[in-house]
Protein backbone atom coordinates (compact mmCIF):
# COMPACT_ATOMS: atom_id res chain seq x y z
CA UNK A 1 0.00 0.00 0.00
CA UNK A 2 1.05 3.57 -0.64
CA UNK A 3 0.47 5.93 2.28
CA UNK A 4 -0.61 9.45 1.36
CA UNK A 5 -1.73 12.75 2.82
CA UNK A 6 -2.97 14.01 -0.51
CA UNK A 7 -6.64 14.89 -0.24
CA UNK A 8 -7.45 13.99 -3.86
CA UNK A 9 -5.82 10.60 -3.52
CA UNK A 10 -7.58 9.93 -0.22
CA UNK A 11 -10.90 10.92 -1.79
CA UNK A 12 -10.25 8.41 -4.56
CA UNK A 13 -9.54 5.64 -2.05
CA UNK A 14 -12.67 6.59 -0.10
CA UNK A 15 -14.75 6.23 -3.23
CA UNK A 16 -13.28 2.81 -3.92
CA UNK A 17 -14.11 1.73 -0.37
CA UNK A 18 -17.69 2.94 -0.82
CA UNK A 19 -17.97 0.85 -3.99
CA UNK A 20 -16.78 -2.21 -2.07
CA UNK A 21 -19.30 -1.59 0.71
CA UNK A 22 -22.16 -1.45 -1.78
CA UNK A 23 -20.98 -4.54 -3.66
CA UNK A 24 -20.29 -6.55 -0.53
CA UNK A 25 -23.59 -5.92 1.19
CA UNK A 26 -25.43 -6.31 -2.12
CA UNK A 27 -23.81 -9.71 -2.70
CA UNK A 28 -24.36 -10.80 0.88
CA UNK A 29 -28.02 -9.76 0.72
CA UNK A 30 -27.60 -8.67 4.34
CA UNK A 31 -25.33 -6.49 6.44
CA UNK A 32 -25.10 -2.86 7.40
CA UNK A 33 -24.36 -0.46 4.55
CA UNK A 34 -25.48 2.81 6.17
CA UNK A 35 -23.12 2.92 9.14
CA UNK A 36 -20.30 1.61 6.96
CA UNK A 37 -20.71 4.43 4.44
CA UNK A 38 -20.80 7.13 7.13
CA UNK A 39 -17.40 6.03 8.45
CA UNK A 40 -15.50 5.90 5.15
CA UNK A 41 -13.48 9.13 5.31
CA UNK A 42 -12.43 8.52 8.89
CA UNK A 43 -11.30 4.95 8.23
CA UNK A 44 -9.55 5.99 5.01
CA UNK A 45 -7.61 8.81 6.65
CA UNK A 46 -6.62 6.55 9.54
CA UNK A 47 -5.34 3.69 7.39
CA UNK A 48 -3.74 5.69 4.57
CA UNK A 49 -2.51 8.79 6.35
CA UNK A 50 -2.53 8.74 10.15
CA UNK A 51 -1.82 5.30 11.51
CA UNK A 52 1.56 3.66 11.78
CA UNK A 53 0.98 0.13 10.48
CA UNK A 54 2.40 -2.41 8.05
CA UNK A 55 0.11 -4.87 6.28
CA UNK A 56 3.11 -7.17 5.71
CA UNK A 57 3.83 -7.16 9.43
CA UNK A 58 0.41 -6.98 11.08
CA UNK A 59 1.63 -7.65 14.61
CA UNK A 60 4.42 -5.06 14.44
CA UNK A 61 5.05 -4.14 18.06
CA UNK A 62 4.92 -0.37 17.69
CA UNK A 63 1.88 -0.24 15.41
CA UNK A 64 -1.04 2.05 16.03
CA UNK A 65 -4.27 0.17 16.55
CA UNK A 66 -7.79 0.61 15.27
CA UNK A 67 -10.81 -0.94 16.92
CA UNK A 68 -14.17 -0.86 15.23
CA UNK A 69 -16.33 -0.89 18.32
CA UNK A 70 -19.44 -0.52 16.14
CA UNK A 71 -18.64 -3.92 14.69
CA UNK A 72 -21.70 -4.07 12.45
CA UNK A 73 -19.91 -1.59 10.17
CA UNK A 74 -17.48 -4.43 9.34
CA UNK A 75 -17.75 -3.81 5.56
CA UNK A 76 -15.91 -0.48 5.82
CA UNK A 77 -13.12 -2.10 7.81
CA UNK A 78 -12.88 -5.16 5.56
CA UNK A 79 -12.77 -2.98 2.45
CA UNK A 80 -10.03 -0.80 3.94
CA UNK A 81 -7.98 -3.73 5.20
CA UNK A 82 -8.28 -5.50 1.86
CA UNK A 83 -7.26 -2.40 -0.09
CA UNK A 84 -4.29 -2.00 2.28
CA UNK A 85 -3.24 -5.56 1.51
CA UNK A 86 -4.08 -7.33 4.77
CA UNK A 87 -6.67 -9.59 3.17
CA UNK A 88 -7.76 -10.45 -0.38
CA UNK A 89 -9.84 -7.92 -2.31
CA UNK A 90 -11.26 -10.59 -4.66
CA UNK A 91 -13.18 -12.38 -1.92
CA UNK A 92 -14.72 -9.29 -0.29
CA UNK A 93 -18.06 -10.24 -1.85
CA UNK A 94 -18.08 -13.52 0.09
CA UNK A 95 -19.09 -11.35 3.07
CA UNK A 96 -21.24 -13.28 5.54
CA UNK A 97 -21.05 -16.56 3.63
CA UNK A 98 -20.24 -19.80 5.41
CA UNK A 99 -16.47 -20.20 5.56
CA UNK A 100 -15.70 -16.61 4.53
CA UNK A 101 -13.05 -14.73 6.49
CA UNK A 102 -15.38 -11.75 6.11
CA UNK A 103 -17.69 -12.66 8.96
CA UNK A 104 -20.83 -10.69 9.77
CA UNK A 105 -18.94 -8.86 12.50
CA UNK A 106 -15.14 -8.60 12.85
CA UNK A 107 -13.76 -11.88 14.16
CA UNK A 108 -10.06 -12.29 15.02
CA UNK A 109 -10.34 -16.05 14.59
CA UNK A 110 -10.87 -15.52 10.86
CA UNK A 111 -8.71 -12.42 10.36
CA UNK A 112 -5.86 -12.45 12.88
CA UNK A 113 -4.69 -9.02 11.75
CA UNK A 114 -7.87 -7.50 13.17
CA UNK A 115 -7.27 -5.96 16.57
CA UNK A 116 -10.52 -7.13 18.14
CA UNK A 117 -13.66 -9.16 17.70
CA UNK A 118 -16.56 -6.79 18.08
CA UNK A 119 -20.30 -6.78 17.53
CA UNK A 120 -21.67 -6.35 21.01
CA UNK A 121 -21.95 -2.59 21.24
CA UNK A 122 -20.45 -0.66 24.12
CA UNK A 123 -17.21 -2.51 24.77
CA UNK A 124 -14.61 -1.10 22.40
CA UNK A 125 -13.77 2.00 24.38
CA UNK A 126 -12.83 -0.06 27.45
CA UNK A 127 -10.73 -2.33 25.29
CA UNK A 128 -8.97 0.63 23.69
CA UNK A 129 -8.22 2.15 27.09
CA UNK A 130 -6.80 -1.16 28.31
CA UNK A 131 -4.53 -1.27 25.28
CA UNK A 132 -3.58 2.35 25.86
CA UNK A 133 -2.66 1.64 29.49
CA UNK A 134 -0.61 -1.39 28.46
CA UNK A 135 1.27 0.66 25.89
CA UNK A 136 2.02 3.34 28.44
CA UNK A 137 3.48 0.76 30.82
CA UNK A 138 5.79 -0.28 28.01
CA UNK A 139 6.74 3.32 27.30
CA UNK A 140 5.40 2.89 23.77
CA UNK A 141 4.46 5.92 21.68
CA UNK A 142 1.80 4.13 19.64
CA UNK A 143 -1.78 5.32 19.60
CA UNK A 144 -5.14 3.59 19.78
CA UNK A 145 -8.13 4.64 17.70
CA UNK A 146 -11.60 3.36 18.44
CA UNK A 147 -14.73 4.08 16.46
CA UNK A 148 -18.05 4.24 18.28
CA UNK A 149 -21.57 4.59 16.90
CA UNK A 150 -23.75 7.38 18.21
CA UNK A 151 -26.43 4.87 19.16
CA UNK A 152 -23.74 2.73 20.71
CA UNK A 153 -22.78 5.35 23.25
CA UNK A 154 -26.16 4.96 24.90
CA UNK A 155 -24.50 1.96 26.57
CA UNK A 156 -23.57 2.59 30.20
CA UNK A 157 -20.19 0.92 29.82
CA UNK A 158 -19.11 3.71 27.46
CA UNK A 159 -19.48 6.19 30.27
CA UNK A 160 -17.73 3.94 32.76
CA UNK A 161 -14.88 3.86 30.28
CA UNK A 162 -15.08 7.61 29.67
CA UNK A 163 -14.58 8.26 33.38
CA UNK A 164 -11.67 5.83 33.50
CA UNK A 165 -9.96 7.34 30.46
CA UNK A 166 -9.96 10.86 31.81
CA UNK A 167 -9.14 9.89 35.39
CA UNK A 168 -6.18 7.77 34.33
CA UNK A 169 -5.13 10.31 31.67
CA UNK A 170 -5.02 7.75 28.86
CA UNK A 171 -4.03 10.34 26.28
CA UNK A 172 -2.83 7.81 23.71
CA UNK A 173 -6.44 6.86 23.04
CA UNK A 174 -8.55 8.70 20.50
CA UNK A 175 -12.23 7.81 20.24
CA UNK A 176 -14.33 8.75 17.25
CA UNK A 177 -18.10 9.01 17.51
CA UNK A 178 -19.64 8.43 14.09
CA UNK A 179 -22.39 10.96 14.73
CA UNK A 180 -24.73 10.02 11.88
CA UNK A 181 -27.83 10.75 13.98
CA UNK A 182 -29.36 7.37 13.16
CA UNK A 183 -29.48 4.05 14.89
CA UNK A 184 -31.37 0.81 14.29
CA UNK A 185 -34.92 1.78 15.17
CA UNK A 186 -34.70 5.29 13.73
CA UNK A 187 -33.32 8.72 14.56
CA UNK A 188 -31.18 9.02 17.68
CA UNK A 189 -33.17 12.06 18.82
CA UNK A 190 -36.36 9.98 18.82
CA UNK A 191 -34.86 6.96 20.56
CA UNK A 192 -32.53 8.37 23.21
CA UNK A 193 -31.29 11.87 22.60
CA UNK A 194 -27.56 12.37 23.18
CA UNK A 195 -27.39 16.16 23.13
CA UNK A 196 -25.62 18.11 24.43
CA UNK A 197 -23.09 15.52 23.33
CA UNK A 198 -19.88 17.56 23.26
CA UNK A 199 -20.71 18.93 26.72
CA UNK A 200 -21.18 15.42 28.04
CA UNK A 201 -17.72 14.34 26.90
CA UNK A 202 -16.18 17.57 28.17
CA UNK A 203 -17.86 17.06 31.52
CA UNK A 204 -16.33 13.58 31.59
CA UNK A 205 -12.89 15.15 31.18
CA UNK A 206 -12.17 14.49 27.51
CA UNK A 207 -10.61 16.73 24.92
CA UNK A 208 -13.43 17.19 22.41
CA UNK A 209 -13.15 18.00 18.72
CA UNK A 210 -16.29 18.51 16.66
CA UNK A 211 -15.87 18.16 12.92
CA UNK A 212 -17.36 17.29 9.57
CA UNK A 213 -16.58 13.60 9.34
CA UNK A 214 -16.76 13.63 5.55
CA UNK A 215 -14.23 16.43 5.05
CA UNK A 216 -10.87 14.76 4.58
CA UNK A 217 -9.02 17.94 5.57
CA UNK A 218 -11.11 18.30 8.71
CA UNK A 219 -10.50 14.66 9.65
CA UNK A 220 -6.74 15.03 9.09
CA UNK A 221 -6.65 18.19 11.17
CA UNK A 222 -8.64 16.60 13.99
CA UNK A 223 -6.33 13.58 14.25
CA UNK A 224 -3.32 15.89 14.36
CA UNK A 225 -4.91 17.92 17.15
CA UNK A 226 -5.78 14.71 19.02
CA UNK A 227 -2.18 13.49 18.85
CA UNK A 228 -0.99 16.79 20.29
CA UNK A 229 -3.46 16.81 23.18
CA UNK A 230 -1.68 15.66 26.34
CA UNK A 231 -3.02 14.68 29.73
CA UNK A 232 -6.45 13.64 28.55
CA UNK A 233 -7.91 11.36 25.93
CA UNK A 234 -9.55 12.89 22.87
CA UNK A 235 -12.92 12.22 21.33
CA UNK A 236 -13.76 13.27 17.80
CA UNK A 237 -17.43 13.96 17.39
CA UNK A 238 -17.65 13.43 13.67
CA UNK A 239 -20.81 14.80 12.14
CA UNK A 240 -21.64 12.38 9.37
CA UNK A 241 -24.47 11.23 7.15
CA UNK A 242 -25.60 7.64 7.38
CA UNK A 243 -25.45 6.09 3.90
CA UNK A 244 -23.15 8.89 2.68
CA UNK A 245 -22.33 8.80 -1.02
CA UNK A 246 -25.38 6.91 -2.23
CA UNK A 247 -28.24 9.37 -2.71
CA UNK A 248 -31.11 7.06 -1.87
CA UNK A 249 -29.37 5.67 1.21
CA UNK A 250 -28.37 9.00 2.71
CA UNK A 251 -30.07 9.75 5.99
CA UNK A 252 -32.52 6.91 5.37
CA UNK A 253 -33.06 4.72 8.46
CA UNK A 254 -33.93 1.77 6.22
CA UNK A 255 -30.32 1.25 5.16
CA UNK A 256 -29.03 0.64 8.66
CA UNK A 257 -29.41 -3.10 8.25
CA UNK A 258 -30.95 -3.53 4.82
CA UNK A 259 -28.62 -4.16 1.89
CA UNK A 260 -29.13 -2.68 -1.57
CA UNK A 261 -30.98 -4.82 -4.12
CA UNK A 262 -29.29 -5.80 -7.38
CA UNK A 263 -30.77 -2.77 -9.13
CA UNK A 264 -29.84 -0.50 -6.25
CA UNK A 265 -26.27 -1.78 -6.37
CA UNK A 266 -26.07 -0.76 -10.03
CA UNK A 267 -27.56 2.64 -9.32
CA UNK A 268 -25.21 3.20 -6.41
CA UNK A 269 -22.13 2.16 -8.39
CA UNK A 270 -23.10 4.66 -11.11
CA UNK A 271 -23.22 7.39 -8.47
CA UNK A 272 -19.85 6.26 -7.18
CA UNK A 273 -18.24 6.00 -10.62
Amino acid at each position, binding site marked *: MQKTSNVQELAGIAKQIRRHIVEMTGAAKSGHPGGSLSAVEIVTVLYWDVMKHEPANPKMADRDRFILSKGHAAPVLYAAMAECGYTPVETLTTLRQLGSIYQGHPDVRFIPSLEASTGSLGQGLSLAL*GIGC*GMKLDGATSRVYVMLGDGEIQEGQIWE*AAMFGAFHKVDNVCAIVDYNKLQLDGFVKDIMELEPLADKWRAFGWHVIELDGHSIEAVQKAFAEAAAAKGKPTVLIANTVKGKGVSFMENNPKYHGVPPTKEEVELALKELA
Partner: protein
Amino acid sequence: MPANTKYELKMGAATREAFGKAVAELGKEDPRIVVCDADLSKSTMTTYFAKEFPERFFECGIAEANMVALGAGLAMTGKIPFVSSFSAFVMTKGFEQLRTTVAYPQVNLKVVGTHSGISIGEDGPSQMSIEDLSLACNLPGFTVLCPADEATMKAAIRWAAYLDGPVFLRAGRVKAPVIYPADYEFDFSKAVQLIEGTDVTLVGTGLLTAECIKASEELAAEGISARVIDVICIKPLDVETLAKAAKETGAMVVAEEHLVDTGLGSRVAQALASTTPAPMEFIGVENCYAESGTPDGLLDKYNLRAPAVAAAARRAIARKNG
Protein backbone atom coordinates in the same frame (compact mmCIF):
# COMPACT_ATOMS: atom_id res chain seq x y z
CA MET B 1 -2.24 -37.48 48.47
CA PRO B 2 -0.49 -40.38 50.22
CA ALA B 3 -2.99 -43.03 51.42
CA ASN B 4 -2.20 -42.62 55.11
CA THR B 5 -2.54 -38.83 55.20
CA LYS B 6 -4.25 -37.52 58.32
CA TYR B 7 -6.16 -34.25 57.89
CA GLU B 8 -6.12 -32.01 60.92
CA LEU B 9 -8.00 -29.25 59.10
CA LYS B 10 -6.38 -26.46 61.10
CA MET B 11 -7.64 -23.04 60.14
CA GLY B 12 -5.53 -21.38 57.48
CA ALA B 13 -5.82 -18.15 55.56
CA ALA B 14 -8.85 -17.29 53.46
CA THR B 15 -8.39 -18.07 49.79
CA ARG B 16 -8.85 -14.35 48.94
CA GLU B 17 -5.93 -13.58 51.24
CA ALA B 18 -3.88 -16.26 49.53
CA PHE B 19 -4.79 -14.75 46.15
CA GLY B 20 -3.79 -11.24 47.21
CA LYS B 21 -0.43 -12.37 48.52
CA ALA B 22 0.27 -14.67 45.59
CA VAL B 23 -0.44 -12.07 42.95
CA ALA B 24 1.73 -9.51 44.77
CA GLU B 25 4.49 -12.11 44.93
CA LEU B 26 4.19 -12.84 41.23
CA GLY B 27 4.27 -9.12 40.54
CA LYS B 28 7.80 -9.01 41.95
CA GLU B 29 9.01 -11.63 39.54
CA ASP B 30 7.18 -10.63 36.41
CA PRO B 31 6.56 -7.05 35.23
CA ARG B 32 3.82 -8.31 32.91
CA ILE B 33 1.53 -8.97 35.88
CA VAL B 34 -1.04 -6.18 36.20
CA VAL B 35 -4.11 -6.00 38.43
CA CYS B 36 -7.48 -4.26 38.08
CA ASP B 37 -10.02 -3.85 40.83
CA ALA B 38 -13.41 -2.17 41.17
CA ASP B 39 -13.25 -0.39 44.53
CA LEU B 40 -12.91 -3.58 46.53
CA SER B 41 -9.16 -4.00 46.78
CA LYS B 42 -9.28 -4.01 50.57
CA SER B 43 -11.67 -6.95 50.39
CA THR B 44 -10.34 -8.87 47.42
CA MET B 45 -6.84 -8.33 48.87
CA THR B 46 -5.40 -6.89 45.69
CA THR B 47 -4.40 -4.09 48.03
CA TYR B 48 -1.06 -5.91 48.61
CA PHE B 49 -0.31 -5.64 44.90
CA ALA B 50 -1.61 -2.07 44.68
CA LYS B 51 0.73 -0.96 47.46
CA GLU B 52 3.80 -2.54 45.93
CA PHE B 53 3.10 -1.78 42.29
CA PRO B 54 0.88 1.29 42.06
CA GLU B 55 1.81 1.85 38.42
CA ARG B 56 0.63 -1.64 37.50
CA PHE B 57 -2.57 -1.44 39.51
CA PHE B 58 -5.64 -0.03 37.77
CA GLU B 59 -8.38 1.19 40.04
CA CYS B 60 -11.51 1.06 37.88
CA GLY B 61 -14.02 2.42 40.33
CA ILE B 62 -17.37 0.71 40.73
CA ALA B 63 -17.62 -0.23 37.07
CA GLU B 64 -17.15 -3.95 36.54
CA ALA B 65 -18.15 -4.11 32.88
CA ASN B 66 -15.48 -1.58 31.96
CA MET B 67 -12.97 -3.37 34.16
CA VAL B 68 -13.37 -6.69 32.36
CA ALA B 69 -13.02 -5.24 28.86
CA LEU B 70 -10.19 -2.98 30.01
CA GLY B 71 -8.40 -6.04 31.35
CA ALA B 72 -8.85 -7.64 27.94
CA GLY B 73 -7.18 -4.61 26.36
CA LEU B 74 -4.24 -4.90 28.75
CA ALA B 75 -3.90 -8.57 27.84
CA MET B 76 -3.80 -7.58 24.18
CA THR B 77 -0.57 -5.68 24.82
CA GLY B 78 1.09 -8.78 26.30
CA LYS B 79 0.35 -8.06 29.94
CA ILE B 80 -0.96 -10.77 32.26
CA PRO B 81 -3.94 -9.05 33.86
CA PHE B 82 -5.79 -10.25 36.95
CA VAL B 83 -9.14 -8.50 37.32
CA SER B 84 -10.83 -8.90 40.64
CA SER B 85 -13.99 -8.01 42.48
CA PHE B 86 -16.65 -9.81 44.44
CA SER B 87 -17.64 -12.77 42.31
CA ALA B 88 -21.28 -11.70 42.59
CA PHE B 89 -20.45 -8.50 40.71
CA VAL B 90 -17.66 -9.28 38.29
CA MET B 91 -19.33 -12.42 36.99
CA THR B 92 -22.77 -10.87 36.57
CA LYS B 93 -22.09 -7.28 35.54
CA GLY B 94 -19.05 -8.41 33.60
CA PHE B 95 -20.53 -11.52 32.06
CA GLU B 96 -21.36 -10.19 28.65
CA GLN B 97 -17.88 -8.68 28.43
CA LEU B 98 -16.40 -12.01 29.48
CA ARG B 99 -18.43 -13.71 26.79
CA THR B 100 -17.84 -11.45 23.80
CA THR B 101 -14.59 -9.67 24.54
CA VAL B 102 -12.70 -12.34 26.47
CA ALA B 103 -13.93 -15.88 25.78
CA TYR B 104 -14.91 -15.52 22.13
CA PRO B 105 -11.51 -14.20 20.99
CA GLN B 106 -9.74 -16.23 23.75
CA VAL B 107 -8.06 -13.29 25.44
CA ASN B 108 -5.48 -14.13 28.10
CA LEU B 109 -7.37 -12.62 31.05
CA LYS B 110 -7.45 -13.94 34.61
CA VAL B 111 -10.60 -13.24 36.60
CA VAL B 112 -10.66 -13.70 40.35
CA GLY B 113 -14.07 -13.62 41.99
CA THR B 114 -13.86 -13.36 45.75
CA HIS B 115 -16.55 -13.62 48.43
CA SER B 116 -18.08 -16.58 46.66
CA GLY B 117 -20.74 -18.76 48.20
CA ILE B 118 -22.91 -18.00 51.20
CA SER B 119 -20.10 -18.15 53.77
CA ILE B 120 -19.46 -14.44 53.35
CA GLY B 121 -22.00 -14.18 56.15
CA GLU B 122 -23.54 -10.97 57.42
CA ASP B 123 -23.62 -8.99 54.16
CA GLY B 124 -26.34 -11.24 52.85
CA PRO B 125 -27.52 -12.46 49.45
CA SER B 126 -26.84 -9.34 47.35
CA GLN B 127 -23.12 -9.99 47.85
CA MET B 128 -23.23 -13.80 47.79
CA SER B 129 -22.19 -15.49 44.61
CA ILE B 130 -23.99 -18.79 44.22
CA GLU B 131 -24.02 -18.89 40.41
CA ASP B 132 -20.44 -17.96 39.46
CA LEU B 133 -19.15 -21.46 38.71
CA SER B 134 -22.03 -22.01 36.35
CA LEU B 135 -21.50 -18.68 34.63
CA ALA B 136 -17.78 -19.32 34.27
CA CYS B 137 -18.41 -22.79 32.84
CA ASN B 138 -20.66 -21.16 30.25
CA LEU B 139 -17.63 -19.46 28.72
CA PRO B 140 -16.05 -21.75 26.11
CA GLY B 141 -12.29 -21.99 26.50
CA PHE B 142 -12.25 -20.75 30.09
CA THR B 143 -10.42 -22.76 32.71
CA VAL B 144 -12.40 -22.67 35.97
CA LEU B 145 -10.70 -23.21 39.32
CA CYS B 146 -12.15 -23.44 42.81
CA PRO B 147 -9.29 -23.86 45.30
CA ALA B 148 -10.14 -25.19 48.75
CA ASP B 149 -7.30 -23.72 50.77
CA GLU B 150 -4.39 -21.34 50.94
CA ALA B 151 -1.76 -23.62 49.39
CA THR B 152 -4.07 -24.50 46.53
CA MET B 153 -4.91 -20.89 45.77
CA LYS B 154 -1.30 -19.83 45.90
CA ALA B 155 -0.27 -22.50 43.42
CA ALA B 156 -3.37 -21.93 41.29
CA ILE B 157 -2.62 -18.24 40.85
CA ARG B 158 0.87 -19.00 39.62
CA TRP B 159 -0.38 -21.75 37.31
CA ALA B 160 -3.19 -19.57 35.95
CA ALA B 161 -0.81 -16.69 35.25
CA TYR B 162 1.22 -18.81 32.85
CA LEU B 163 -1.63 -20.77 31.35
CA ASP B 164 -2.23 -19.39 27.89
CA GLY B 165 -5.92 -18.52 27.95
CA PRO B 166 -8.70 -17.11 30.09
CA VAL B 167 -9.12 -18.37 33.64
CA PHE B 168 -11.70 -17.88 36.38
CA LEU B 169 -10.63 -18.46 39.97
CA ARG B 170 -13.13 -18.62 42.78
CA ALA B 171 -12.09 -17.34 46.19
CA GLY B 172 -13.82 -17.20 49.55
CA ARG B 173 -14.01 -14.61 52.29
CA VAL B 174 -13.58 -16.71 55.43
CA LYS B 175 -10.57 -18.59 56.70
CA ALA B 176 -10.33 -21.99 55.08
CA PRO B 177 -9.18 -25.24 56.74
CA VAL B 178 -5.75 -26.39 55.62
CA ILE B 179 -5.89 -29.51 53.47
CA TYR B 180 -2.62 -29.48 51.54
CA PRO B 181 0.91 -29.04 52.85
CA ALA B 182 2.49 -25.76 51.78
CA ASP B 183 4.93 -27.56 49.48
CA TYR B 184 2.38 -29.81 47.79
CA GLU B 185 3.01 -30.19 44.06
CA PHE B 186 -0.29 -29.58 42.36
CA ASP B 187 -1.26 -31.02 39.01
CA PHE B 188 -4.30 -28.94 38.17
CA SER B 189 -5.36 -31.22 35.35
CA LYS B 190 -6.24 -33.84 37.95
CA ALA B 191 -8.85 -34.08 40.65
CA VAL B 192 -7.07 -35.02 43.86
CA GLN B 193 -7.96 -38.15 45.76
CA LEU B 194 -7.56 -37.12 49.38
CA ILE B 195 -8.86 -40.27 51.07
CA GLU B 196 -9.08 -43.83 49.74
CA GLY B 197 -12.48 -45.51 50.03
CA THR B 198 -14.60 -48.27 48.52
CA ASP B 199 -18.28 -47.78 49.44
CA VAL B 200 -19.02 -44.27 48.28
CA THR B 201 -17.18 -41.25 46.84
CA LEU B 202 -17.54 -37.76 48.29
CA VAL B 203 -16.62 -35.12 45.73
CA GLY B 204 -16.04 -31.66 47.13
CA THR B 205 -14.84 -28.30 45.94
CA GLY B 206 -13.91 -25.11 47.78
CA LEU B 207 -14.94 -25.04 51.43
CA LEU B 208 -17.01 -28.17 51.00
CA THR B 209 -13.95 -30.34 50.44
CA ALA B 210 -13.10 -30.06 54.14
CA GLU B 211 -16.71 -30.98 54.96
CA CYS B 212 -16.33 -34.09 52.80
CA ILE B 213 -13.21 -35.05 54.76
CA LYS B 214 -15.11 -34.65 58.03
CA ALA B 215 -18.04 -36.61 56.61
CA SER B 216 -15.75 -39.48 55.65
CA GLU B 217 -14.56 -39.66 59.26
CA GLU B 218 -18.15 -39.70 60.48
CA LEU B 219 -18.96 -42.48 58.00
CA ALA B 220 -15.83 -44.45 58.93
CA ALA B 221 -17.10 -44.65 62.48
CA GLU B 222 -20.15 -46.48 61.05
CA GLY B 223 -17.94 -48.83 59.04
CA ILE B 224 -18.55 -47.04 55.73
CA SER B 225 -15.47 -46.51 53.61
CA ALA B 226 -15.83 -43.16 51.84
CA ARG B 227 -13.41 -41.97 49.20
CA VAL B 228 -12.85 -38.21 49.12
CA ILE B 229 -11.95 -36.31 45.98
CA ASP B 230 -11.16 -32.61 45.78
CA VAL B 231 -12.09 -31.06 42.44
CA ILE B 232 -9.95 -27.96 42.08
CA CYS B 233 -10.41 -27.61 38.36
CA ILE B 234 -14.13 -27.47 37.62
CA LYS B 235 -13.44 -27.05 33.92
CA PRO B 236 -11.95 -28.92 32.21
CA LEU B 237 -13.13 -31.66 34.52
CA ASP B 238 -10.96 -34.69 35.31
CA VAL B 239 -13.55 -37.19 34.15
CA GLU B 240 -11.13 -40.09 34.37
CA THR B 241 -10.62 -39.84 38.13
CA LEU B 242 -14.34 -39.33 38.72
CA ALA B 243 -15.40 -42.19 36.43
CA LYS B 244 -12.92 -44.50 38.12
CA ALA B 245 -14.34 -43.54 41.52
CA ALA B 246 -17.91 -44.10 40.32
CA LYS B 247 -16.95 -47.50 38.96
CA GLU B 248 -15.03 -48.58 42.04
CA THR B 249 -17.34 -47.22 44.75
CA GLY B 250 -20.67 -47.32 42.89
CA ALA B 251 -22.16 -44.32 44.72
CA MET B 252 -21.38 -40.60 44.47
CA VAL B 253 -22.02 -37.41 46.42
CA VAL B 254 -21.04 -33.99 45.08
CA ALA B 255 -20.90 -31.08 47.54
CA GLU B 256 -20.40 -27.42 46.73
CA GLU B 257 -21.17 -23.94 48.02
CA HIS B 258 -23.10 -23.07 44.87
CA LEU B 259 -26.57 -23.49 43.43
CA VAL B 260 -27.02 -27.22 43.44
CA ASP B 261 -28.66 -27.39 40.01
CA THR B 262 -25.95 -25.71 37.98
CA GLY B 263 -22.54 -26.17 39.53
CA LEU B 264 -20.00 -28.95 39.90
CA GLY B 265 -22.71 -31.50 40.68
CA SER B 266 -24.40 -31.11 37.34
CA ARG B 267 -21.07 -31.26 35.54
CA VAL B 268 -20.07 -34.46 37.32
CA ALA B 269 -23.49 -35.99 36.70
CA GLN B 270 -23.25 -35.25 33.01
CA ALA B 271 -19.75 -36.70 32.81
CA LEU B 272 -20.73 -39.87 34.66
CA ALA B 273 -23.99 -40.33 32.77
CA SER B 274 -21.95 -40.79 29.62
CA THR B 275 -19.23 -42.95 31.21
CA THR B 276 -20.01 -44.83 34.42
CA PRO B 277 -23.46 -43.96 35.80
CA ALA B 278 -23.90 -44.48 39.51
CA PRO B 279 -26.45 -43.33 42.07
CA MET B 280 -25.66 -39.72 42.92
CA GLU B 281 -26.68 -37.24 45.60
CA PHE B 282 -26.05 -33.52 45.60
CA ILE B 283 -25.24 -31.02 48.33
CA GLY B 284 -25.47 -27.32 47.51
CA VAL B 285 -27.64 -24.24 47.80
CA GLU B 286 -31.16 -25.38 47.01
CA ASN B 287 -32.90 -23.02 44.56
CA CYS B 288 -32.93 -20.06 46.96
CA TYR B 289 -31.07 -17.00 48.14
CA ALA B 290 -29.67 -17.28 51.65
CA GLU B 291 -29.71 -14.52 54.28
CA SER B 292 -27.51 -12.67 56.76
CA GLY B 293 -25.85 -14.58 59.57
CA THR B 294 -22.51 -15.83 60.74
CA PRO B 295 -20.66 -17.88 58.15
CA ASP B 296 -20.87 -20.96 60.35
CA GLY B 297 -24.53 -20.38 61.14
CA LEU B 298 -25.31 -20.09 57.43
CA LEU B 299 -23.39 -23.20 56.42
CA ASP B 300 -25.30 -25.12 59.12
CA LYS B 301 -28.70 -23.73 58.23
CA TYR B 302 -28.29 -24.30 54.49
CA ASN B 303 -27.05 -27.88 54.93
CA LEU B 304 -23.54 -27.34 53.64
CA ARG B 305 -21.86 -29.30 56.44
CA ALA B 306 -20.36 -32.72 57.02
CA PRO B 307 -23.54 -34.21 58.54
CA ALA B 308 -25.50 -33.28 55.40
CA VAL B 309 -22.78 -34.82 53.23
CA ALA B 310 -22.74 -37.98 55.33
CA ALA B 311 -26.53 -38.26 55.14
CA ALA B 312 -26.36 -37.89 51.37
CA ALA B 313 -23.72 -40.64 51.28
CA ARG B 314 -26.01 -43.00 53.18
CA ARG B 315 -28.82 -42.28 50.69
CA ALA B 316 -26.55 -42.91 47.72
CA ILE B 317 -25.32 -46.19 49.22
CA ALA B 318 -28.90 -47.27 49.94
CA ARG B 319 -29.82 -46.65 46.31
CA LYS B 320 -26.79 -48.59 45.13
CA ASN B 321 -27.76 -51.54 47.32
CA GLY B 322 -31.52 -51.18 46.81
